[in-house]
């Protein structure tokens, strides 16, 4: 009796769901999973943006955006990140074409632009702290350093990942594993560029209006 019942249930289930086990190629869901991680990262940045939006005008009688920000420097920094985005794109195209040397060269160029971005950002931070406008000065500066610093930390870890991936590609070539890693890192890198659009718009440009 129970056997019959199970049978009809499976029949009914089979109408709506795929019950037969089927093989998923290894790593088939990695890019979607990584995308979902990036979306959760996006939520974290949204919280930091909200904090900056709320505290961004609490200067505690200290310096404001117009006293501290240098738009020329920010424009150069934005250019660095944009250039690193397109060179990463070229690295991806070289990888799909199977050209290992070109992939490594483009990744190297990307790394240089990424490090330039970090260098300029650290110079800006150091300059502000030197002026007495460190993160402990006011709510505005705490929120600023947290938001921009978190983005910078992402770029730092992206650069470390980039270096390790370059070593792996140099040693093991462009196998499916390294291609998968490259796809993930390219998503991460372009995503950081998207976050930077939000940063330079909401923090720097709107602060200077």
């Amino acid at each position, binding site marked *: 009796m129970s056997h019959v019942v199970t049978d009809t249930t499976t029949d009914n289930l089979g109408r709506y769901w795929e019950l037969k086990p*089927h093989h*998923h*190629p290894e790593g*088939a869901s990695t*890019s*979607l999973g990584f*995308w*979902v991680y990036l*979306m959760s990262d*996006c*939520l974290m940045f*949204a*919280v930091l*943006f*909200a*904090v900056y*939006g*709320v505290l961004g005008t609490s200067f505690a009688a200290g310096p404001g955006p117009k006293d501290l920000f240098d*738009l*020329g420097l*920010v*424009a150069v920094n*934005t*250019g660095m990140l*944009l250039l690193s*985005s*397109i060179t990463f*794109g*070229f690295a*991806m*195209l070289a990888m*799909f074409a199977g050209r290992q040397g070109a992939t490594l060269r483009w990744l190297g160029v990307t790394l240089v632009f990424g490090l330039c971005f970090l260098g300029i950002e650290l110079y800006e931070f150091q300059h502000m702290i030197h002026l007495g406008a460190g993160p402990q000065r006011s709510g505005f500066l705490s929120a600023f350093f947290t938001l921009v610093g978190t983005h910078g930390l992402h770029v730092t870890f992206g650069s470390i990942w980039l270096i390790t991936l370059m070593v792996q590609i140099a040693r093991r070539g462009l196998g499916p594993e390294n291609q998968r890693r490259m*796809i993930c890192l390219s*998503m991460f890198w*372009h*995503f950081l*560029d*998207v976050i930077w*659009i*939000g940063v*330079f*718009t*909401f923090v720097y*440009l*709107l602060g*200077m*209006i």
Partner: protein
Amino acid sequence: MSAEHAHTAHHQDHGHDHGSHAAYIKGFLLSVILTAIPFGLVMAGGFESRSLTAVTVMGFAVAQILVHMVCFLHMNGKQEEGWTMLSTIFTIVVVVILLAGSLWVMYHMNTNMMPQMDHELMQGFGS
């Protein structure tokens, strides 16, 4: 059987939108333009009305984010059978609620609460 074949072929097809040199260069040029205009606008002093400048700058940011999504991240409705797009839309909805809600609530808190934190009132407490 043929349906299964199509299924596997579809699975392998997922990562196949790699973009092209043309797409990357188009995205890059659009991004440069969409970055340069708001920077130039703000550096030149902006429009008469500050809010008009702010809205223009934010409009350019939204346009540039869309350019990045399409040209660099190769987003479209078909990726991973639509799950990429669905998770993105969900995230955007949460982000908008979070940002608009925080700013709205905290703005009202500030305008309603601040007078009571006034200097004179604080002195009144002391005496």
